[in-house]
């Protein structure tokens, strides 16, 4: 048997293409080893090491630039879209790590496994965002999900945490089955699992009418819809979000969503040419359902964490508004919104972590009463993030929604935009309800004392707050970046 010939140059190109992922995985393994060697009281170092790894990885993304590098026989590509989502995912991971320093001390999650699972999940997300072969996308999806199942159940002595993990796991595995069957049917119809090849074949109208292929696309969509929690595939979201350690919830809501949308955008924008006539109706319905059900359910919640969980469902619906038209403008708006959403949602969860003293009990809305004047910094931050989530100027949330809805209008989906705006208006009610509690409702009895913020934690809040304001007032460069990313995909 002859040895397998190795193409060293191609291998090097491939390694360059996945450099940011390699750095993250290497950090995860390094953290595991350091964890063995340091005593219990020094575990904070692990968080620092992880953070350094993530920052270096982020740096390498900028180093690689927007140039298109394809590697590993077309299994993965570093292009504008991949780079954009890597920035979103790594930023979300860095913010989560900053908040985890304090959180881990309060809740006892200072364990090497926590950080290395977080990093492994991040690497899975990045592979998913960059995968151009559905095999890579699938493996990225699973590498993302499995650590998250564990992280949701990290507080395994708390029933709600481990139960959230079970529900997320069962529905996640179920969703993976749908995703895979979708890929299998697409493979049966075309004989390939590479996304660009599928897109090229779709130019032939016969394929777009092939029932096997259509069923495949549908099942694939269902699988991804579970991951981004679109209604009616959202039933796991509130439980998993509420049960998970709150830093993990923040991470999930921002990063998992971004990664799954990255795959969705890559598949949708490339296959849209052939599928547009059917696809826009499906996406239209999903988008409207998701926004409406998410917002209506959020209106009824008294638990802040659960309310934010439902609101995150609604936000997935807004992002989908941008994808209905499947064109450049909508794609750009969706990308920008996902970036903004990561900052404002992680920020909101961050303040909520500080105000709630204990998992499970501290998240009742009444706990917020009177906080605003007694702790002005916390009140101001939470107000800023909520105002942005509600889409009120001058915050980034407003700019994001403005571009999403105006893209819908420009493409002639007037009703979609109208429903989106109505939903957005309804959401302002429950976001402002929290603000009202903070500033206008007097505390009953003893006011809870927020946790003393750590330097790192404050840094995370400041960074998110600054991002929300800056992207709100000067959105230009981020919008340009999003535009270039979408263009790099379409070309």
């Amino acid at each position, binding site marked *: 048997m002859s040895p397998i010939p190795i193409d060293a140059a191609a291998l090097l190109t491939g390694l360059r293409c996945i450099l940011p992922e390699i750095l993250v995985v290497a950090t995860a393994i390094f953290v595991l080893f350091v964890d063995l060697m340091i005593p219990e009281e020094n575990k904070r170092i692990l968080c620092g090491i992880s953070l350094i790894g993530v920052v270096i990885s982020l740096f390498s993304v900028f180093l690689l630039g927007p140039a298109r590098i394809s590697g590993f026989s077309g299994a993965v590509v570093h292009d504008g879209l991949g780079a954009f989502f890597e920035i979103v995912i790594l930023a979300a991971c860095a913010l989560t790590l900053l908040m985890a320093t304090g959180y881990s001390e309060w809740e006892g999650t200072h364990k090497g496994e926590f950080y290395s699972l977080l990093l492994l999940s991040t690497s899975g997300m990045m592979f998913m965002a960059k995968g151009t072969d559905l*095999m890579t996308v*699938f*493996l990225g999806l*699973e590498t993302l999900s*499995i650590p998250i*199942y*564990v992280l949701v*159940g990290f507080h*395994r*002595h708390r*029933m*709600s945490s*481990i*139960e*959230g*993990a*079970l*529900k997320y*796991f*069962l529905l996640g*595995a*179920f969703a*993976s*089955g749908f995703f*895979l*069957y979708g*890929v*299998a*049917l697409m*493979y*049966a119809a075309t*004989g*390939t*699992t590479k996304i660009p090849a599928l897109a090229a074949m779709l130019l032939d109208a016969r394929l777009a009418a092939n029932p*096997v292929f259509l069923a495949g696309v549908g099942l694939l969509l269902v699988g991804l819809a579970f991951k981004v929690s679109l209604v009616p595939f959202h*039933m796991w979201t*509130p*439980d998993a979000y*509420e*049960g998970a350690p709150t830093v993990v919830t923040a991470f999930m809501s921002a990063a998992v969503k971004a990664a799954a949308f990255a795959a969705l955008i890559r598949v949708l924008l490339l296959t849209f040419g052939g599928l547009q006539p059917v696809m826009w109706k499906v996406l239209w319905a999903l988008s409207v359902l998701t926004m409406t059900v998410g917002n209506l359910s959020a209106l009824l919640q008294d638990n802040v964490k659960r309310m934010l969980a439902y609101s995150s469902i609604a936000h997935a619906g807004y992002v989908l508004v941008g994808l209905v038209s499947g064109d450049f403008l909508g794609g750009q708006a969706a990308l920008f919104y996902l970036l903004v959403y990561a900052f404002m949602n992680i920020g909101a969860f961050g303040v909520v972590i500080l105000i709630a003293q204990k998992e499970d009990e501290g998240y009742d809305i009444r706990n917020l009463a009177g906080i605003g004047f007694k702790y002005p910094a916390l009140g101001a931050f939470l107000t800023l993030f909520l105002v942005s989530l509600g889409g009120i100027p001058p915050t980034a949330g407003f700019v994001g929604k403005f571009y999403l809805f105006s893209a819908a209008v420009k493409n002639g989906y007037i009703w979609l935009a109208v429903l989106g705006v109505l939903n957005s208006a309804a959401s302002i009610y429950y976001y402002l309800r929290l603000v009202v509690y903070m500033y206008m409702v007097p505390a009953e009895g003893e006011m809870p004392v927020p946790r003393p913020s750590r330097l790192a934690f404050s840094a995370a809040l400041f960074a998110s707050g600054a991002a929300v304001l800056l992207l709100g007032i000067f959105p230009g460069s981020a919008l340009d970046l999003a535009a270039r990313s979408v263009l790099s995909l379409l070309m």
Partner: protein
Amino acid sequence: MMEPAAYLLLSGILFGIGVVGVVARKNALIILMSVEIMLNGVNVAFIAVGSHLGDVTGSVFAFMVMTVAAAEAAVGLAILIAIYRLKETIDITELNVLKW
């Protein structure tokens, strides 16, 4: 050698049985077993199509699916054991700290 359509039909049936199991049963272990049946259905489709086309991609994909199925089973059972330690049940209807 049968027609590939026969295999595709068979894989669809297996997948469907798995879905029925997940939706209709309340015991977490049975749900997990049903998911495994779904994944087996997926693999039948991949391998049958791949071998019909003379393309190994299908086999490699099925190989990856098996890897992932094993990893999922390990993590899922770890979660179940953790739950069982706390509550001595794995019937998901009896787990109602959070609303289902």
